[in-house]
């Protein structure tokens, strides 16, 4: 069983090395890839020094394209399972290992680490989302649940684990603008088993969130358009292998 853990990173030189060390400790068997999304700082150098493989996009392409790069790499290089987590230190690698265990046990094709899931409540004292994030999250939670008829609590989580069926699907189709939500909708529509697992998340170790209230409003509007359009996308019987 070969496993790839990839970390999309954009200007995260302050935290990327410690995230890599964290993953190495929790998942010593896994290969590590940092997808550097056109960073202007020393993210790629820090990641290489820390012993990870680095795939640098020549210019910033957005989170969706960075994640797709990871899925494509995992698919091409024959990995059986892959997982990704954020480079800002919010995601403890030990939790990623739990997501991967679900995939390797073949209980699900795609596992999402959820901050809000009932089981996470007790551990959530160390994670406090901002107001605009809470609003956005609840709006998306409602509409995604409506669209997929499956209950999702944390739609924008950047901590996931996946098997080869998901790699094949996501390396072909992955919305560059609206990565997290559309990919969930897509996976459910393609008949893949998507599962949420409660996880513990931490405050950001470095950098700052890109969400200001105005941006959040635009983000929500764009997300709703994407979800609506996604409902009319053709359904494929099976993603090409």
């Amino acid at each position: 069983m070969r496993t790839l853990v990839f970390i999309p990173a954009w200007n995260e030189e302050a935290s990327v090395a410690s995230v890599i060390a964290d993953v190495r400790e929790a998942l010593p068997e896994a290969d590590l890839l940092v997808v550097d999304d056109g960073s202007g700082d020393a993210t790629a150098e820090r990641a290489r020094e820390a012993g990870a493989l680095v795939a640098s996009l020549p210019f910033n392409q957005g989170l969706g394209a960075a994640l797709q790069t990871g899925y494509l790499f995992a698919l091409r290089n024959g990995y059986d399972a892959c997982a990704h987590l954020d480079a800002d230190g919010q995601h403890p690698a030990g939790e990623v290992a739990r997501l991967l265990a679900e995939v390797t046990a073949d209980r699900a094709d795609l596992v999402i680490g959820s901050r809000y899931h009932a089981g996470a409540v007790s551990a959530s004292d160390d994670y406090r989302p901002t107001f605009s994030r809470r609003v956005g999250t609840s709006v998306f939670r409602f509409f995604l649940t409506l669209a997929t008829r499956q209950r999702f609590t944390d739609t924008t989580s950047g901590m996931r684990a996946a098997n080869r069926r998901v790699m094949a699907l996501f390396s072909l189709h992955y919305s560059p603008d609206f990565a997290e939500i559309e990919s969930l909708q897509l996976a459910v529509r393609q008949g893949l088993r998507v599962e949420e697992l409660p996880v513990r998340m931490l405050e950001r170790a470095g950098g700052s969130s890109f969400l200001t209230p105005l941006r959040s409003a635009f983000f929500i509007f764009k997300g709703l358009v994407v979800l609506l359009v996604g409902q009319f996308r053709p359904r494929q019987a099976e993603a090409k292998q």
Partner: protein
Amino acid sequence: MTGLVLAAAEAEPQVHLTSQTRIVAAAIAVFFMLLILDLIRRDRLQERYSVIWLLAGLGMLAGAAFPGLLELLADAMGVRNTNVALFSVVLLLLLGLALNFSVIMSRQAAQITRLAQERAIEQARRQSAGEAANGNGSAGEQSLQSKEQRL
């Protein structure tokens, strides 16, 4: 009230293009098509994107040379003023063109993204191969390399 307005409108004569408008339009159409040809000649515009513009220029010229066509069009649209019919049609055509370009742009954006991803993956693959060759690559990375050589 509405009846009165309609009656007043009925009384107005149909508005045609003046000959001055027609001459100016014809001149612009010819100049426009020459510009397109020049852009192609200097490799600033690809032939496949020029067809639509040359057709637009020809349409402009036809409208200026045969105003009867425009009046037919205005009648078909139920518009009394030929100029208004002309504006409406041109506006619709431009909308269609703009949409066409958005479609082309989206396709090219997707192609650029894939190109960037391929480059990034190739870079990671070479790093992995280099580390394996230096003997300090982990077992996982060596198996990655041998897997790639088989592919």
